[in-house]
């Protein structure tokens, strides 16, 4: 009897919704068992369980970053007070008289820089506080996190302004969005920005398995490997782990 082909959608979901390092081996294992007689329903159940477990682990892993981001977003009024002291209440008229695109860039910088710098400061503070887990992060990962945080702030701000029908959607000045109104609302894009930046920066990178060429061992040499050499003992005494090397 011809066996039903494996559920490609389940395999695709597994490969895209679980950790990259485990996905290939996990899908291969499920395909091997499916080819050995397991049902398609069983394949789907295994895939759903693996995706659920991965999602739960991701949530747990990112919980400290989420809590920090929410708390950091509430600090924004203090940051506003500090930055506000350095900025005039609105974009000066002489700036607006400059040739295009300088006025637009100035307005953008004037309104956005305080928020983005606040997000970046939060990310760097978090990395500093948790340096036991972040000390070995490559600079490229931190830069990509900061970049993602900035993009999220911009997008979330645009969405929030749209939602609030705010007139400063066109022209952001110090008297408006980031330095003026609805501080609690403003903390939403800032919190999202910090959170996404931390997720990108601290995403898990499990150890990469060695390639097949380093793994395969000639049968004649297998006795030299200690788990193999102790295998016989394990067959006799499962309860006792093999002895340590002297």
């Amino acid at each position, binding site marked *: 009897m011809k066996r039903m082909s494996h559920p490609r959608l389940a395999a695709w979901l597994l490969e895209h919704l679980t950790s990259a390092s485990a996905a290939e081996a996990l899908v291969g294992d499920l395909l091997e068992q499916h080819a050995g007689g397991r049902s398609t329903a069983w394949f789907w159940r295994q895939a759903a369980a*693996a995706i659920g477990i991965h999602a739960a682990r991701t949530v747990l892993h990112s919980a400290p970053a989420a809590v920090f981001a929410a708390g950091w977003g509430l600090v924004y009024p203090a940051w506003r007070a500090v930055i506000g002291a350095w900025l005039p209440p609105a974009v000066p008229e002489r700036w607006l008289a400059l040739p295009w695109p300088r006025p637009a860039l100035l307005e953008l910088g004037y309104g956005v820089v305080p928020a983005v710098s606040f997000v970046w400061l939060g990310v760097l503070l978090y990395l500093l506080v948790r340096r036991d887990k972040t000390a070995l992060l490559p600079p490229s990962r931190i830069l990509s996190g900061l970049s993602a945080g900035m993009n999220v702030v911009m997008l979330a701000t645009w969405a929030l302004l749209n939602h609030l029908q705010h007139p400063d959607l066109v022209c952001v000045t110090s008297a408006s969005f980031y330095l003026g109104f609805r501080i609690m609302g403003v903390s939403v894009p800032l919190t999202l920005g910090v959170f996404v930046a931390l997720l990108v920066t601290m995403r898990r990178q499990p150890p990469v398995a*060695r390639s097949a060429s380093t793994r395969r061992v000639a049968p004649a040499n297998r006795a030299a490997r200690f788990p193999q050499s102790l295998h016989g003992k394990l067959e006799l005494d499962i309860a006792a782990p093999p002895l340590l090397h002297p």
Partner: protein
Amino acid sequence: MAERGYLGEFELMVLLSVIRLADDAYGVPLVRDLSELRGRDVSAGSVYAALERLEAKGLVTSSLGDATPERGGRAKRYFRVTEDGLRTAHDTRRVLNQLWKKLPSVGGDPA
């Protein structure tokens, strides 16, 4: 960097199963072994999650093996216990043995 900490019950089972299976310790035999020992189905996802935690703690290492047609061309991922892993298994066994000694029988008499 290896993260150190206590082993959970399931992690310990997976670690012992990796030791037991030795050179054949990849996903399929591990899931089968654990399912037989526990007497019920074990999901492959939970086994891989435990293996990733063990690897992060430096108790096992992994390496890629052969890709076969029935696996859709995907490589097997073999796991091996490390010296630290073996030491942790021994430590855990010693602690648990001490704890088991004080276990009363169901009727209330000492075991």
